[in-house]
């Protein structure tokens, strides 16, 4: 699973800390999601999508080969 969270965050001109505050998660969580080390829950993924006003699949890209 790839994601474009860093790109969306940069477009919005937000720091990881600010985004973490907006999403009510820790900064470490944002760092882990951006680096692809942690897959967010469906709830958090939707929260991120709603925050950036885009569809969930615009941020998180599912790769079928991973299965």
């Amino acid at each position, binding site marked *: 699973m790839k994601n474009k969270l860093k790109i969306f965050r940069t477009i919005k001109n937000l720091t990881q800390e600010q985004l973490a*505050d907006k999403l*009510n*998660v*820790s900064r*470490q*969580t944002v760092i*882990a999601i951006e680096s692809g080390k*942690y897959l*967010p*829950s469906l*709830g*958090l993924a939707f929260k991120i999508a709603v925050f950036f006003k885009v569809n969930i699949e615009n941020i998180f890209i599912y790769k079928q080969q991973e299965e």
Partner: protein
Amino acid sequence: MTLCKDVYTIIVMNIKKYEKIKSSVIIFIIAIITISIFSKLYLLAVVGILTGILFFSIVRFKTDIAIDEREQEIKEKAANITYAIFVPTISIGSFLLLVPSLSSSSVFSQGEFIFTETLGIIFAYLTLFLITLYTISYFFLNRKFGGKSDEK
């Protein structure tokens, strides 16, 4: 008015604020416990611990603190690993401690290993207790998260 503002501040507390308050309260409780132990006022230490537990229970119950899901997942995995390591370790430990007392050797049968045997029995009961607790919580959580049998 100030009180209302303070209450509101607590209710909308985010993780950062909660962590700060938690650290302060923990430091305060540790200080109380240390002082009470050095002063040999053990009741005060117990009261300090109970107050701390009560405070955190109320804060968590009354406020809407979102738990960081990554941290939660780490905790779950850590608990799983701890269980997976701890249970076999103490079960093997209990077996090894009980073996000498079961042996037909005269040295062991004379009760010289009474303490190891007692420790072995405690470990065995601890193993059983942990497995029972795990099984009960597993079935409870399985039911809670909809793992019942299929409805007709």
